[in-house]
């Protein structure tokens, strides 16, 4: 907390003396750049963390500026004006949430389609603002209103803007330190994994978009007061583009980056635009170089040189707290496939699978490549829609639920190719999995949730031979494949699932590691008393761990029995040893 306040006070100390030191006109100019910077901070938050690139932030900026200007013309008294401003910001960010929610629902990526939609919306807004002359004044602009609270745009208004910039930065610094930050970053890193940890990622992205819209709306309100006129360009494509450029050049991964970018670019352009005809060329070239060579922008360069003097101290490892109990259901029970058919185009993947597992134990799923093993797991977690049939777990249908609800039903899953958050450290990965299904709304904004540990997780982490404890600070992208297998296993069991799905957990492991993994699986099942389903090719592991074996072949159940019975089944032998005829 202290460091956040320190940084915010430093920012305040830089911004406050500007009118005194450089005069009121410079302060007026810096005020405008800070306004753009606040909007850009919202873009930096959204784009830098979730990877969603908004190309139409001027929609919120411009509409808010128009609405703010109208409220200033008609509302008397500071209280009423402030209430109107708050209402405008709230309305616009709710609208942003709804739009993003509708667009992102049912998808697990943030491809360029969203950016293009925001771009088209900005163009519609600009066109409408230019045509609806009676409301907006058309291309002449909307003017004839005093600034908020009657402040002088060349005088005291600067301090309001500076306060807004500091307040915004303070908020962003606080979010950066909170568990919420991990969740937003996890969206950009590995959305499917985050869904399996129980997060409706479309809602997370929509919330981040709503936040960025709120910051653009705040900037728009200040803009109206500052400029005394609002024109259609303030809601258009060109401004949206410029805000993104400011964000990129300043640095989208840092709280202060967009502010720095807005002030540096704004100041340099004001100084050079009229004296130096090649200024715009240089700006464009700088932008291209940033994209190609320095995606972290100015802030990253500053940060790197600063870090050399003040290296990051690792977090204290000793203070671990017990995590709250997971929400949702954790009841052991049987998994039942009832005549499940699955078809993708002309390819028939599952052809009428029916089986019912016992309530507890370890079930191995074996079968040749293409038998439908992974597809069966995908059907359980809702990644594939059934063509027909039912899947029940503890008596309830689960086949039509989206993947992010699997965890709530008590299902944990490890994917075939280790799927973890590569840009994060081991500790952060574990923190995300500990939050999953346990954190309440307020926990996402309290740092103590970082220290949560569950019994299941501690047992794995403290087990001799598990290679995670000594590399907690390491970025997961640098870990070898085997270590990632253990990490993903730890993350899959962190929520204490009553049905654990493991897709080839021992792939890429050494014989010692394989033995360790098998015993971890065994132990987890014994301690939880739940059901574990393992896809495995190695028959020695199958023999050592399984209570029952499910044999799939060409999308059908070939056998479902004990290991001994399955091994002596003539049908199974025919498939594995070639035709006996």
């Amino acid at each position: 907390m202290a460091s956040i306040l320190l940084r915010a006070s430093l920012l305040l100390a830089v911004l406050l003396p500007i009118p005194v030191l450089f005069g009121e006109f410079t302060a007026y100019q810096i005020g405008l750049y800070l306004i753009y910077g606040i909007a850009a901070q919202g873009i930096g938050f959204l784009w830098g963390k979730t990877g969603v690139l908004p190309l139409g932030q001027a929609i919120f900026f411009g509409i808010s500026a128009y609405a703010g200007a109208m409220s200033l013309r008609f509302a008397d008294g500071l209280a009423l004006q402030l209430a109107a401003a708050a209402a405008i910001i709230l309305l616009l960010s709710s609208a942003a949430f709804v739009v993003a929610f509708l667009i992102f629902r049912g998808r697990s990526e943030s491809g360029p389609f969203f950016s293009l939609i925001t771009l088209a919306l900005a163009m519609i807004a600009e066109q409408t603002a230019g045509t609806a002359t009676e409301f907006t004044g058309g291309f002449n602009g909307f003017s004839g209103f005093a600034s908020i609270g009657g402040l002088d745009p060349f005088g005291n208004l600067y301090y309001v803007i500076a306060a807004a910039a500091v307040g915004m930065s303070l908020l962003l610094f606080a979010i950066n330190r909170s568990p919420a930050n991990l969740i937003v970053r996890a969206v950009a890193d590995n959305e499917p994994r985050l869904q399996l940890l129980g997060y409706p990622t479309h809602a997370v992205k929509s919330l981040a978009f709503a936040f960025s819209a709120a910051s653009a709306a705040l900037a728009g309100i200040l803009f109206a007061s500052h400029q005394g006129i609002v024109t259609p360009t303030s809601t258009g494509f060109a401004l949206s583009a410029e805000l993104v450029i400011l964000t990129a050049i300043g640095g989208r991964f840092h709280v202060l980056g967009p502010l720095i970018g807005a002030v540096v670019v704004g100041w340099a352009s004001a100084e050079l635009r009229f004296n130096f005809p090649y200024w715009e060329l240089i700006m464009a070239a700088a932008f291209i170089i940033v994209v190609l060579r320095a995606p972290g922008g100015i802030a990253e360069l500053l940060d790197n040189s600063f870090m050399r003097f003040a290296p990051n101290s690792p977090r204290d490892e000793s203070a671990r707290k017990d995590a709250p109990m997971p929400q949702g259901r954790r009841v052991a029970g049987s998994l039942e496939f009832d005549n499940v058919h699955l078809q993708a185009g002309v390819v028939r993947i599952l052809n009428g699978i029916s089986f019912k597992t016992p309530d507890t134990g370890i079930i191995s799923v074996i079968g040749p490549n293409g038998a439908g093993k992974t597809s069966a797991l995908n059907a359980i977690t809702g990644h594939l829609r059934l063509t027909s049939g039912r899947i029940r777990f503890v008596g309830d249908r689960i086949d039509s639920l989206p993947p992010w609800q699997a965890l709530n039903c008590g299902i944990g899953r490890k994917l075939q190719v280790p799927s973890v958050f590569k840009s994060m450290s081991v500790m952060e990965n574990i923190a995300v999995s500990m939050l999953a299904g346990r954190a309440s709304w307020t926990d996402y904004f309290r740092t103590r949730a970082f220290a949560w540990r569950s019994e299941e997780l501690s047992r794995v982490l403290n087990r001799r031979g598990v290679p995670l404890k000594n590399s907690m600070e390491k970025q997961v992208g640098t870990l070898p494949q085997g270590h990632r297998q253990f990490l993903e296993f730890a993350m899959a069991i962190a929520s204490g699932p009553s049905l654990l799905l493991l897709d080839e957990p021992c792939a890429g492991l050494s014989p010692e590691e394989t033995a360790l993994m098998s015993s971890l699986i065994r132990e987890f099942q014994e301690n939880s008393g739940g059901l574990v389903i393992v896809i495995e090719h190695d028959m020695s592991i199958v023999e050592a761990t399984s209570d029952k074996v499910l044999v799939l072949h060409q999308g059908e159940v070939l056998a479902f029995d004990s290991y001994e019975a399955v091994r002596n089944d003539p049908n199974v032998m025919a498939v594995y040893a070639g035709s006996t005829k």
Partner: protein
Amino acid sequence: MSLALILNLAWHVGTLALVALGLAIIFGKLRIMNMAHGEFVMIGAYSPVITSSMGLPAWLQLPVCLLTVGLVALVVERAVVCRLYGRMFDSLLATWGISILLREAIELIFGRGYQSVSLPIPGTIQILGSGYPAYRIAIIACIALGFALLAWWNSRSMVATRIKAMVENPGLAQAVGIDTGRLSRWAFVFGCCTAGLAGLALAPTIRIEPMMGLDYLIKSFFALVVGGLGSLEGLGLGAGIIAGTQSLIGAAFNQTYGYLAVLSLSILFLWLKPDGIHSASR
């Protein structure tokens, strides 16, 4: 529907299809979101201005256009775009910077004002009793012929398959003997040159200015989104729907409504059917 309206529609659809063709290759095949595409149209449209300012005869407009646009595209590909394959978002941002760069460069050379170019084929042709500009009919015919040739060539050539292989797995493509650097370079230059040609064809019928590219970029992006990437049929369909919507609603109400209709239609497609109507890729 009068004949003039139909010919107008053919003109708008044809020129949009030509503009979007280059983007279909660069965005659809190379997976580069080329935000500078409109600027290549713009440079193509400036090529008559360049030709006359160099004192060259008018018949050299076509070679001047291809040479200028091709050279600029080659430099852009070598300097920037070749580092962006497989980085879709970065390609969007970097080519955006390129679009600003090209706009500003043209503005520094020719100024911000409008330029106009005289029609190379003056007069009108009488068809079924109504007159229509001869130049536009000639261009429509050329575009139709060009696309027919392209479809014929595309059906027998392996280039499209090679490009697909290269984009999906550059390492493997190299291993089976595809010179990926050369292939992507010339695919990019070819795409930009078709945009330049479209600019040249449009030049006598529009006001030429440095900012003109954005409109063409947006419309061709939307044509691709609506039609679907990866096939000439999708391209034609998308261009038909976008240009058709704009010119029909524009004619029935006014240009603003036409523009708003195109934007709304595109949003609906991006939201509900992001793969477009006729998607051949995947």
